């Protein structure tokens, strides 16, 4: 093989990686969502029966909507916690800044399961939170207020996905030239006004991206609801998961997964549009 051919081959291989690893599985899903199951056998077909069954059901669409709501709230909490943290890191000087940034990025390298167990040991009946509140005399006895409910899911997901909110927000803050902040102050902007009119709008795209990351990650997370959610942990992720496992109805699972993908796609496109309109 000539070097030129080799180079072309390498390029094709590199360019095809996303196709093979992203587009092919998605296409497989989409195609499978039109199949059906007969006596525990997958039968290729072109039926919309799976989608019809989803919309006809009186539980699944509700679970779907509730999951979207849940993930939206997680995204809001993630940004509400992530923005102040990113902002405070950005305001530091020199080495402290990078130490703090690293500190908040470390959870990215930790196992997901470990993080969930950590949250459980904080929020659980014998958890730090309960023990602390009992010791302080705020609670008489440990409470189930923080675990096996919706609140537990929200808090756990928001904390686990926090770095994904902090990093894009921090990056967008760091891209703001200091001279713009100086110019705002120079023209009479008190710190709060400079934040409102310059820093906040210029970091909006990163903030939207952070919210999106958290939203999409939460949407795909079916383990957290199961581990800390108790009865309210019945999210669409778990429904899909069960269709692939216990129920052995892959086409139906694939149909719901495709709908989820569609929602994620619409949300991301909307956010991209908003970010573009910010002109930064």
């Amino acid at each position, binding site marked *: 093989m000539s070097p030129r051919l080799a180079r072309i081959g390498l390029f094709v291989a590199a360019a095809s990686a996303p196709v093979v690893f992203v587009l092919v599985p998605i296409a497989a899903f989409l195609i499978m969502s039109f199949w059906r199951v007969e006596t525990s056998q997958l039968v290729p077909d072109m039926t919309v029966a799976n989608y019809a069954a989803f919309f006809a059901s009186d539980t699944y669409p509700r679970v779907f909507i509730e999951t979207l709501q849940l993930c939206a709230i997680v995204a809001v909490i993630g940004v509400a916690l992530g923005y102040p943290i990113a902002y405070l890191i950005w305001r530091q000087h020199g080495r402290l800044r990078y130490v703090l940034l690293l500190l908040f990025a470390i959870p990215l390298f930790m196992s997901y399961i470990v993080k969930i167990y950590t949250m459980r040991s904080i929020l659980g009946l014998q958890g730090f939170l309960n023990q602390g509140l009992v010791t302080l005399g705020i609670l008489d006895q440990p409470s189930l207020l923080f675990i096996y409910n919706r609140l537990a899911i929200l808090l756990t997901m928001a904390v686990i996905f926090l770095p994904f909110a902090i990093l894009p927000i921090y990056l967008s803050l760091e891209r703001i030239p200091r001279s*713009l902040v100086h*110019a705002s102050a120079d023209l*009479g902007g008190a710190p709060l006004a400079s934040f409102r009119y310059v820093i906040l709008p210029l970091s909006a795209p990163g903030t939207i991206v952070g919210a999106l990351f958290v939203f999409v990650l939460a949407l795909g997370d079916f383990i957290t609801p199961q581990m800390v959610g108790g009865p309210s942990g019945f999210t669409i992720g778990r429904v899909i998961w069960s269709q692939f496992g216990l129920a052995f109805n892959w086409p139906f699972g694939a149909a719901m997964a495709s709908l989820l993908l569609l929602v994620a796609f619409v949300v991301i496109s909307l956010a991209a549009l908003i970010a573009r309109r910010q002109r930064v």
Partner: protein
Amino acid sequence: MTVLLELDAVSKSYGATEVLRPTSLEVKDGEFLTILGPSGSGKTTILRLVGGFARPTAGRIRFDGADVTNVPTHKRPFNTVFQDYALFPHMNVARNVGYGLMLRRRPKREIENRVAETLEVVGLSGMLDRYPSQLSGGQRQRVALARALVCDPRLILLDEPLAALDAGLRRQMQLFLKSLQRQVRTTFLFVTHDQEEATTMSDRIVVMNVGHIEQIGTPRDIYYAPASRFVAEFFGDNNILGGTISDGRLQCALGAFPAPPALVEGSAALAAIRPEKVRLGTAAEPADIVFTAAVIDVVFAGAITQVLLRPNASPEAIITAKLTSGAAIGSLAPDASVEVRIAREDAVILPAASP
């Protein structure tokens, strides 16, 4: 003229390095004052201290008689034109220019009128809806100016505002800035490292050299009476001749020049002579020093021709003469021997070491 801004023994250190020695400076109301100096001499540092973006290590800054040393930037009643313009990328021209008025909670109509007026002054009417990314460098420059002017500050700080422009636009903006300053009667504190720019625009110039002021004066003062060797070499070209003081005169290889009485007998000193004061072969005046030299090179530069000369009496000292171009000079060939004359009073005599 009254003093508008006063720096009183202001200094600035970062850690152990003193980037600005205790410096005192008075900016008069309505003047165009330029801080001129090579890179790293502390020009921006002074502007940052005045603007409130950094705090002085020692000394006081007074504006219109009031001490503003510790007043935060947003409460200082003057505005800055930044070197990189610092226009808000998410606001159009109208909102950029109106920003200061918006913060002052002026009524919407007043803001619109003031913005339109100011944009007209800087020659940018009809660009209200453009975003900074849709403007040329010169237009951004004008928006930055308008944004600073719109609040009617009594003092505007400009940090090398023309450095990013190409030569043609730069000349044009120099003339524009100067006439604008006359028109709005605002005090300009202008920073540049370009000697010609400083000369053409300023009422007075502050020449800086690593962390201190070397000289303050009108462009003429500084050109004709540089106070130190640094100023003589940095501000326009000068021929420097070294020598010693004896009998109240500077004795150097090419002749003797009368020295000011402040210079101590026996001390090293130098004569600074402008290249345009060096004459070739013209009639001798009684006060001239005269010597013969070999022509090294003749460089034609339009109206002016530069002649490089090597004096026979002092071959290591290369003398530059700037002469009006003409047939006689054009025919000068390298290696020709010429008679060179310099009027004694055209030499500025300075101590060799900086004070």
